[in-house]
């Protein structure tokens, strides 16, 4: 477990972060710009000396009433928003900077294997100045991991990259972050990145943690901040099906749920091979409800579901409805007028019309 109860006041800004998440997997710290995500990450790393409260990471206490582990002893890997490689050292020397300072290599991360999977073998002898943004971030990630951290922190690692570089690094992170055996905190304001990477979610608004837990629990909290916001969305995992319809990509989500999407190729054109595992992000506002199965609709995905939960109160004229689709959770945001008109109730069978789903 990672348990945090952190307070910090800094030039008029107050951070109040109280949460606990499992000590493994990727935890996304999600919230709008300026809500204190970076500050929270820095406090976890030990880079905010004024932070008070408590913080424990698995078996270790990093911050307590009378104890404060200095940053250099926390063994925390950090990938900052802007890559902070050492310009006077080659890529290889950068990679080994932290590893050289380990008192002993306990769990030998195979160096060459890591370098190969980050695709930075060809850069080893170069200096950071000439590298592209994506290359720098990959080196920074390798440098952090070779120091065998107990927790990896990533602060919007994609934000300084162009679109193409972003997509490439994202693909690598998707493969990579699931593989490593270290808990990861990933700060982002992009719901797409959350949907693609996160197992757990910590929601932050105005310096306060408003919700935390597994991604399905936090996304599915119908009265939560996230559900009320415009970004409310669901994540469904699936697999690209082998049988495809003309011009469509079919994603088999198990238990008879197959979603169809227009066959657009990804930017790098590599991901939509049959059999590959994918995640779908479906915005709550793109899901509408019908009491009877619509016929002859342009909407590709119309699936039977049961209303699992309705938000207690409407918010801004809309209400969030949580659907149970053969065990999969799906959010729909519809007008309060429609809720009343259709007389929607918990347990009621409906048809969910999914206007669009993003293959991510």
């Amino acid at each position, binding site marked *: 477990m990672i348990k945090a109860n952190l307070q910090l006041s800094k030039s008029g800004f107050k951070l109040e972060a109280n949460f606990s998440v499992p000590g493994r997997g990727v935890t996304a710290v999600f919230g709008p710009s300026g809500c204190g995500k970076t500050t929270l990450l820095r406090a976890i790393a030990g880079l905010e000396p004024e932070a008070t409260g408590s913080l424990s990471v698995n078996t270790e206490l990093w911050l307590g009433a009378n104890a404060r582990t200095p940053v250099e002893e*926390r063994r925390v890997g950090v990938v900052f928003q802007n890559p902070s490689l050492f310009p006077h050292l080659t890529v290889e020397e950068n990679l080994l*900077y932290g590893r050289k300072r380990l008192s002993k290599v306990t769990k030998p991360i195979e160096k060459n294997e890591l370098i190969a999977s980050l695709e930075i073998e060809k850069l080893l002898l170069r200096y950071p100045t000439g590298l592209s943004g994506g290359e720098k971030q990959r080196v920074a990630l390798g440098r952090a991991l070779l120091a065998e951290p107990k927790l990896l922190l990533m602060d919007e690692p994609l934000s300084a990259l162009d679109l193409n570089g972003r997509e490439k690094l994202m693909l690598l992170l998707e493969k990579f972050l699931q593989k490593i055996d270290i808990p990861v905190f990933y700060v982002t304001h992009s719901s797409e990145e959350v949907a693609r990477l996160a197992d757990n979610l910590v929601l932050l608004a105005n310096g306060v943690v408003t919700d935390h837990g597994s991604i399905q629990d936090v996304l599915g909290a119908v009265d939560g901040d996230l559900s009320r916001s415009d970004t409310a969305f669901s994540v469904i995992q699936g697999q690209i099906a082998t049988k495809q319809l003309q011009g469509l990509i079919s994603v088999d989500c198990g238990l008879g749920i197959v979603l169809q999407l227009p066959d657009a190729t990804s930017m790098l054109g590599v991901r939509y091979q049959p059999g590959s595992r994918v995640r779908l992000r479906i915005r709550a506002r793109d899901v509408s409800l019908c009491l009877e199965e619509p016929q002859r609709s342009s909407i590709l995905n119309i699936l039977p579901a049961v209303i699992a939960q309705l938000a207690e109160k409407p918010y801004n004229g809309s209400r969030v409805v949580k659907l149970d689709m053969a065990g999969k959770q799906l959010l729909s945001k519809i007008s309060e007028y429609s809720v009343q008109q259709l007389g929607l109730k918990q347990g009621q069978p409906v048809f969910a019309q999914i206007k669009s789903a993003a293959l991510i």
Partner: protein
Amino acid sequence: MISQPDIAALLITLKLAGTTTLILILLGTPLAWWLATTRSRARSAIEAVIALPLVLPPTVLGFYLLLSFSPDGPIGATTSALGLPSMAFSFWGLVIGSAIYSLPFVVQPLQNSFAGLGRMQLEAAATLGARPLDRFISVVLPLSKMGYLTAAVLGFAHTLGEFGVVLMIGGNIPGETQVLSIAIYDHVEALEYSQAHWLAAGLLLCSFLVLLMIYSANRRFHLMKTT
């Protein structure tokens, strides 16, 4: 041409400039680091004190140093209590005077260099397990090479050209405290213009070459940084 006393003056000058520069680099490093990183209110006051030699006539500095070297002055009292010889009219007295006189020329380039580093790289080093001194040696020093070169060259060159402070506290003892600038003055006083020329032109050329070296190194460094 160049006489024996002139060579002695040259050697004393080089020894004085070298010793002063070394001491200033050692003392200036922690001082400049503190100035570059502190948020203390005392910073402005300390910066102003360090910059004083830039504006004060050297004779003012020399006058107060002479007073403090006297047996009743704070430095003089200390040295005599420790059984040491008086600082006035001695080489080490000159070193103290020069160190104070050249302090801003060493501290300011170092401070600018440290302040320009930003905290990102240091924070990254800390997360990678480097302790404070280790961070300073492995990150700050190599990234401040230009700052150190500038500080050392300016400190050295400025001490070479010192006149007023030396005259006030060092006297003009050939082979002990007579430095080049004072030797030149003596030659001119004695109407020995050709000797004065040798020394003066030599000093001029030296100073130019030294400054040329930093400016071209600086240019290369900036070009390297921008590519």
